[in-house]
């Protein structure tokens, strides 16, 4: 394809798949380490785990699109018509995640307002009758 010889593109594909495999393994190790599954008592803050994981996934996406799908060797016009529209997703992600957090805030407010009338809790169903019978 393009200016690469057969041998060159063959070794490039091998190199790419090795990089992809290494990134995937590091992602899993990082996720398990960050959540304290590998070493007892060792964990990392959630924003760091999330940030590193998203960055690694974007690198993987770049390698798949640009090397495996040969986007690197297409003319700039084609690249732009495919890549630029996906930038709309940046706003979609910000807007909908913001919306999601708002839903949570509203749920909390409604629950707090109702708390005096209905016996509910953060999770779990309350067994008031049961509690009365078996006072600890």
């Amino acid at each position, binding site marked *: *394809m*393009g*200016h690469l010889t*057969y041998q060159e*593109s*063959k070794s490039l*594909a*091998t190199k*790419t*798949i090795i990089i*992809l*495999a290494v990134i*995937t*393994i590091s*992602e*899993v190790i990082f*996720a*398990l380490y960050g959540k304290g*599954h590998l070493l007892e008592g060792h964990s990392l803050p959630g924003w760091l*785990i*999330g940030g590193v994981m*998203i960055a690694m*996934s974007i690198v*993987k*996406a770049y390698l*798949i*699109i640009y090397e*495996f*799908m040969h986007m690197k060797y*297409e*003319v700039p*016009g*084609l690249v732009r*018509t*495919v890549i630029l*529209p*996906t930038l709309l*997703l940046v706003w*979609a*992600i910000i807007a*909908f*995640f913001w*919306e*999601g*957090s*708002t*839903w*949570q805030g509203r*749920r909390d407010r409604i629950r707090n307002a109702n708390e005096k009338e209905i016996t509910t*809790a*953060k*999770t*779990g*169903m*309350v*067994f008031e009758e*049961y*509690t009365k019978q*078996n006072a*600890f």
Partner: protein
Amino acid sequence: MATDTLEHDVHTDEKDGWDGAGQPFKASYGKLMMWYFLLSDAFTFSGFLIAYGAIRFSMPSWPVPDFVFQTFPFLGADKPLYFVTFMTFVLLFSSFTMVRAVQEGHQENKKGVVFWMLLTVIGGAGFLGCQAWEWNTLIQGEHMSVTINPFGTHTESGVYLSENGKPTDDTFQIGDSYLIHMNGASHGDDHATDDHGSDDHGAHAGHHYDGPGEYADASVDEKGYIHRKYKVTSGEDEGMVKSEAFGPNGFGALFFFITGFHGFHVLSGVIFLLIIMLNVMTGLYVERKNGYEMVEKIGLYWHFVDLVWVFVFLVFYLL
């Protein structure tokens, strides 16, 4: 790039699917349209994944993936993310074999194309098999459904109650995960679901109740799910007795729908790969002399399926 242009010009007149003389973006009609189809498909998947994110953000707690996806065939539970990592590798390497098939196509090497496409088909089918096992474990072993999510997360610390209603030494902290078992479900089979919560309620797995109703240590609902009872030991509800609630309802629907939609893409990919592989074998593309362009087009689709999995893997299993 210069040689590329030349190569295309030779057969612009009939082979590339465009009516006019020139080629927009120096790509054939089929390849360009495949790119735009994939772009629209990317938006569809993004819509699903963003919906997952928005619903997850709106919930006070969410099932922890390391707890939900921790079973491995023949090895049982407590293997967080091992199996899904294996699945990811199967798909990743089938993407690599696809690249090799396309490269052999440029060499007009028929045997090479068939060989690497066959490996790709095997990889795709293997991935589907893995997904079937994973779904089966969740549905049959752990009783998750589109509307019921038995994977919950504690938002308070507490201690589980014994059969006579007294606190046991079985305690849990905020953020600990639990799985709501099914009354009368067989535990200890090779699904190893009983080990699923061995750290926090293994002793309870396999406990049988006479039927739906209230018991001192649990509440069994109409469908047979056992909601274990516990005494809260932290927060404003300290001292209250509660029973484990189901996890966020949307989880099951989102999981089955999004991984199912991806799996359906893999399935159609495998079918198209098979059809095109048969066409290669019959020598159809040798006659067309266009460097097996059809293999390139299905290759684009196949890499896209792998690309989507990168993000499904990220949001469902890693974060």
